[in-house]
């Protein structure tokens, strides 16, 4: 490239100086700067920053949610299993039941024992009055359609 070409290039580059923002732009820079300082978020501590950077990632957010869901599910399952009737230790059975079994000498002891087991978890007043007949007709069975 020759000198004339370089001289022309320098003149062309000097034209770039003429590119200016709107006349009032620079007047607002100071106020914009002050607004920016006022709206600046408070600096966070080192450890808070680390925790934020880890938990702030979407993948970690999903993982944390999934972990909490799993823990909740496990806690619910454990509670349910603990409350449900499973194999019961003899020492945990109601005292009245143990007395009945000890006093049982008749030959229909097997039938009696089944009945006692079935009714063991029922309230005592209802256990001896087991009834399988509905006293009233459920509302769902009532014929409401009239023609």
């Amino acid at each position, binding site marked *: *490239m020759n000198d004339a*070409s*370089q001289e*022309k*290039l*320098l*003149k*062309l*580059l*000097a*034209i*770039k*100086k*003429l*590119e*200016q*923002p*709107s006349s009032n*732009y*620079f007047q607002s*820079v*100071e106020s*914009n*700067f002050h607004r*920016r*300082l006022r709206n*600046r978020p408070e600096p966070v501590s080192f450890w808070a920053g680390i925790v934020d950077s880890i938990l702030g990632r979407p993948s970690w957010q999903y993982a944390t949610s999934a972990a909490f869901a799993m823990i909740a599910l496990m806690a619910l399952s454990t509670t349910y299993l603990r409350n449900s009737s499973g194999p019961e230790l003899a020492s945990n059975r109601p005292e009245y039941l143990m007395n009945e079994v000890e006093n049982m000498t008749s030959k229909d002891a097997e039938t009696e024992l089944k009945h006692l087991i079935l009714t063991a978890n029922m309230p005592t007043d209802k256990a001896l009055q087991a009834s399988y007949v509905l006293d009233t007709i459920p509302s769902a069975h009532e014929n409401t359609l009239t023609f």
Partner: protein
Amino acid sequence: MSDAPTVFDSESPFGSRTDAELVALAQGGEMQAFDELLNRYKTKVYGTIYHMTGNHEDSNDLLLEVFEKAYFSLEKFKGKSSFSTWIFQITKNHVINHCQKNRNQNTFSLNEITSEDSDNDKFREFISPESTDRDVKIKELQNKLNESLMKLSEEHRLVVVMHDVEGKSGVEIAQILRCSEGTVRSRLHYARQQLQTHLKDYLI
């Protein structure tokens, strides 16, 4: 290198102070002193950022970020270099980081060249004054020039912008870039060669 402010604002209570005095006052918590520094350098810093990015919106954000960074780093400024060199070092680091992150997003939102400027003699060599679509030609020239600048690496572009557009000396640029004057001259020579190749249609 000149450290004197280019514009003295007679209305400002700090208008007659030197940069070094203003820095000392700002380090002591005097906000108005920093405002004076901001007002002295905003046009020049904006110019460097704008010619590096070719985008007004980005330049506006980066300008505020540069002064914010300077404000919070001011206590670390020991005065080994002038405030001018220091603020342009921050500008250089900030704008190069921005350009590297957005290398594939060269969207220009160029500032207008005003009509009085477009009648200037400077355009005569490139666009005929009799041309009917003169404004279109100026816009085209402006775009072509910016495209050519964007094809340069950030380091080469910065040297061209500081030397050929803003008129900084080789010594000043070397201090800002923390390199030797020889490196500045070498980068300038290479960058001009590249630009001449890209803009050969306009340089005949």
